[in-house]
């Protein structure tokens, strides 16, 4: 079965500082990787996805992530965060072998301070 580990439950950071949210997944022949953002009392919004090809993936709101197969990681980065980036971020993995369902990590709460 697929699994995802988000190494930090909370990440506090000052506005305009860079941030990295870490994600590791269990290995499989082929995986699809995603980052979702959830603002308080709202649904899940896709930030970016890795299906194949270039290992550096750019998403919305200035976020990017790098797929590292040897380290089974898919860390999310942003060079300069804003107060509005305060939210919970979920890393998720999917595999056609397991029916395309998404398996989510426990989430990382990003708190941006002024």
């Amino acid at each position: 079965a697929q699994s995802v580990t988000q190494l930090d439950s909370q990440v506090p950071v000052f506005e305009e500082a860079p941030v990295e949210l870490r994600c590791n997944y269990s290995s499989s022949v082929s995986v699809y990787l995603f980052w979702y953002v959830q603002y308080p009392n709202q649904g899940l919004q896709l930030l970016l996805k890795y299906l194949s090809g270039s290992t550096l993936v750019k998403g919305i709101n200035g976020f990017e992530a790098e797929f590292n197969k040897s380290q089974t990681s898919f860390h999310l980065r942003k060079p300069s965060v804003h107060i509005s980036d305060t939210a919970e971020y979920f890393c998720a993995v999917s595999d056609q072998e397991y029916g395309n369902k998404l398996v989510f990590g426990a989430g990382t709460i990003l708190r941006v301070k002024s």
Partner: protein
Amino acid sequence: AAGVIQSPRHLIKEKRETATLKCYPIPRHDTVYWYQQGPGQDPQFLISFYEKMQSDKGSIPDRFSAQQFSDYHSELNMSSLELGDSALYFCASSEAKPSYNEQFFGPGTRLTVL
């Protein structure tokens, strides 16, 4: 662009009552997924449907059942509700193609069991 519609958005029930949650996928999407997100937890896959047939099943209690109708909308029926069923229930839809397709999430139905 049309999004996934879920109704109702909020639902309050008593223990041992029943609840029905509805999901209307994006037009031309033939696959529907249901996820449950408990308070402070990550979303957990419940069940999915492709072309009106159950395609995958996760950690869905026997008290819950679901189906997908001819117009591709889906309903999640929950009986003998328990306090622990209080959660945010997400529906997601996608197109079924040989390669992975992105799941688009609805805003969720917040179920509170008293």
